[in-house]
């Protein structure tokens, strides 16, 4: 065990982490963004990206009808082409988990997990009791993945123990029933040093995935942030032999954006992470762009947007 969970052991461990140089991290991310992914590698990347999408709807206006529609899209993203793989998961608010689960089961999407955002998403400003109940409800309704938010207020004021304990308790509820993704909300942590610290805090507390953002705060999944998180899971693996997943979410809208993410994964964490079990992309609009590019690769020309479905 690297730490015993006490405030002081967490503080002293986080202090041993090497700093992140912002300029250098941005430069590295910018260089990797110049990778040119063409032909066969592009086709491979598009299908991989589709399999990694956590198809998401997180609106106050969500209705059972809307949720059933994205479930249909998740199972069969392109109605005209059965070779398109299904997405990684469907991500909804707590109260929509049951609707999503039964919709998926009904249309042959039994192996697509439902992810529920939890712990008073997106702000995390609620009592621990509420957060625990939120998670218990989601699991009871059939959520196989819990996307929890950390308490950024506690983190920014240096109360790392509180952040840690909360994750540990949510993880205990998830147990073997659900995968735990921990949302750092990097747009509120601001510095890359904070991103690295929060990544380790989440991994030490038992996160199965670390996730950049709620999608409600900008900036979200910027390349330097994802780069630092990928470095963290890579280094955590060499410390513990345990592979933690990464999920960027927010602002990834085009195939180009998604492929840049895959390049980061490939060259920073390594090819082992190029799998939906270790890398997910939280998105909604992205899926249609991936489908359009997939059609372009297949047919040699761009189809009208009317040929992809709006759900």
């Amino acid at each position, binding site marked *: 065990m690297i730490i015993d969970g006490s405030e002081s052991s967490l503080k002293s461990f986080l202090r041993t982490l*090497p700093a992140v*140089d912002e300029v*250098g*991290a941005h430069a590295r991310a910018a260089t990797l963004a*110049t990778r*040119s*992914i063409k032909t066969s590698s592009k086709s*491979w990347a598009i299908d*991989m990206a589709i399999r990694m999408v956590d198809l998401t709807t997180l609106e106050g206006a969500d209705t059972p009808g809307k949720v059933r529609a994205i479930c249909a899209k998740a199972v069969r993203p392109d109605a005209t082409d059965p070779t398109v793989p299904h997405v990684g998961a469907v991500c909804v608010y707590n109260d929509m988990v049951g609707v999503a689960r039964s919709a998926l089961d009904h249309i042959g999407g039994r192996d697509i997990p439902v992810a529920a955002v939890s712990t008073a998403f997106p702000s995390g400003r609620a009592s621990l009791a509420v957060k625990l109940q939120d998670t218990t409800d989601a699991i009871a309704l059939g959520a196989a993945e819990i996307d929890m938010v950390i308490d950024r207020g506690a983190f920014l004021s240096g109360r790392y123990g509180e952040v840690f304990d909360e994750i540990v308790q949510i993880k205990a509820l998830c147990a073997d029933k659900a995968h735990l993704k921990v949302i750092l909300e990097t747009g509120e942590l601001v510095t890359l040093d904070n991103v690295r610290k929060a990544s380790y805090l989440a991994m030490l507390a038992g996160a199965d995935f670390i996730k950049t953002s709620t999608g409600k705060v900008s900036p979200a999944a910027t390349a330097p942030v994802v780069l630092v998180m990928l470095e963290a899971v890579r280094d955590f693996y060499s410390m513990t032999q345990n592979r933690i997943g990464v999920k960027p979410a927010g602002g990834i809208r085009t195939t180009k954006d998604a492929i840049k993410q895959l390049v980061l994964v490939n060259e920073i964490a390594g090819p082992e992470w190029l799998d939906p079990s270790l890398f997910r992309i939280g998105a909604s609009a992205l899926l249609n762009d991936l489908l359009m590019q997939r059609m372009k690769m297949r047919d040699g020309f761009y189809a009208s947007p009317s040929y992809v479905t709006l759900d």
Partner: protein
Amino acid sequence: MSAFEYAPALESTAIVDIKERYGHFVNGKFQAPKSGKYFPTINPATEKVLSNVALGNASDVDLAVAAARNAYVKVWSKMPAAERGKYLFRIARILQERAREFAVLETLDNGKPIRESRDTDIPLAAAHFFYHAGWADKLEHSGNGASPKPYGVVAQIIPWNFPLLMLAWKVAPALATGNTVVLKPAETTPLTALLFADVCRQAELPAGVVNIITGAGETGALLVNHPGIDKVAFTGSTEVGKLIATSIAGTKKVATLELGGKAANIIYDDAAIDQAVEGIVNGIFFNQGHVCCAGSRLLVQESVHDEVLEKLKVRMANIRLGNPLDKNTDIGAINSAAQLAKIKELTSAGDQQGAERWSAPCEIPEAGFWFAPTVFTGVSQTHRIAREEIFGPVLSVLTFRTPQEAIEKANNTPYGLSAGIWTEKGSKILWTASKLRAGVIWANTFNKFDPASPFGGYKESGWGREGGRHGLSAYLKAIK
């Protein structure tokens, strides 16, 4: 495909039009060499001949120097400074407009990856012309006296590692300050200089202001020793720099010399390790290590040596070596067979003297000149690979225990061109920088260049500075 393998993404070569052969560019026109001789220039990634260029002899040099003198006396020295500046602006804009053409040609002739010629060499070359264009009519404010004057005719000899960029470093300040130029590009990389001749034509630069003659060392010696030359500017090896210094001793000629280096890249234990590893890679593997200011000696604090080396090797295994025209290539071809032989000779000396070699596992193409990114550990100050400039993708790793020891080792070299410091502690950066005997010091970065920043070396790394206000002084007689 089981893994994410990047399919070839080749930059098209259709944009370049390479002629079968080129004469010298003298007095605004391409002219057949008086020598009657041509020599081939090849693509180092394929060993195929790209073109044949003129071999300059004494008569060719005479003609070029006479053209430059004539242009200086009749046109360039009489032109209002603001007009001179306009030509430089025009050249800068044309370089930007034709950037892709230059990038492809540079990559073909030099072997460097298209990513670097496209993103570094060509944009920086244009930036040097823009920067110096602005100075042309403000020289009296450059700190060189109230009425600084040009020397006259300048001989400029440039190396093969950054062919167009080194041309820009030389030609832009010379023209901005009112000198005329006879330039000789390196014999293995003449093509972008010859394309630059076309830019001069397009910009309607008066004939004879820029003259370009091609040839090897003998042609360069004829140029340096020509009595019509007022000033010499040279970038290249310390060995040749010493010859030039000897040959101009006792003449009226002045010289700026930008020579070799064996830079220390110092990694303290409190550095941002991941970015320091990037800095090491950028420091020594940028441009195949064909960089005079390359961070070729890694000085790493013993307490983080293993961690840094482990991360460095993982990172090096990710470096993509191969076709320089592929947009995903990180490391291209070694520029020439001769340079490859030199790298091999020095690295085998490393083996013999007991350093431990590790090379990144990468496929080496059959044709062309290649050297896998290599790191030597267990290197001590007495090893040749710690003292001599390898000028290739080869890193020598030494360790230190205290900051004082880092400084002693860093300064224990006949060179003094550049150095790097990696620490999160600002006071340590300032303390280290003040003790290092090097002309350029980078803190938490490496190989960053800007036309406003003077570049040049201490000790055997050279005389004078290029870039910034200091660089202007090299082309001006300060009349106080």
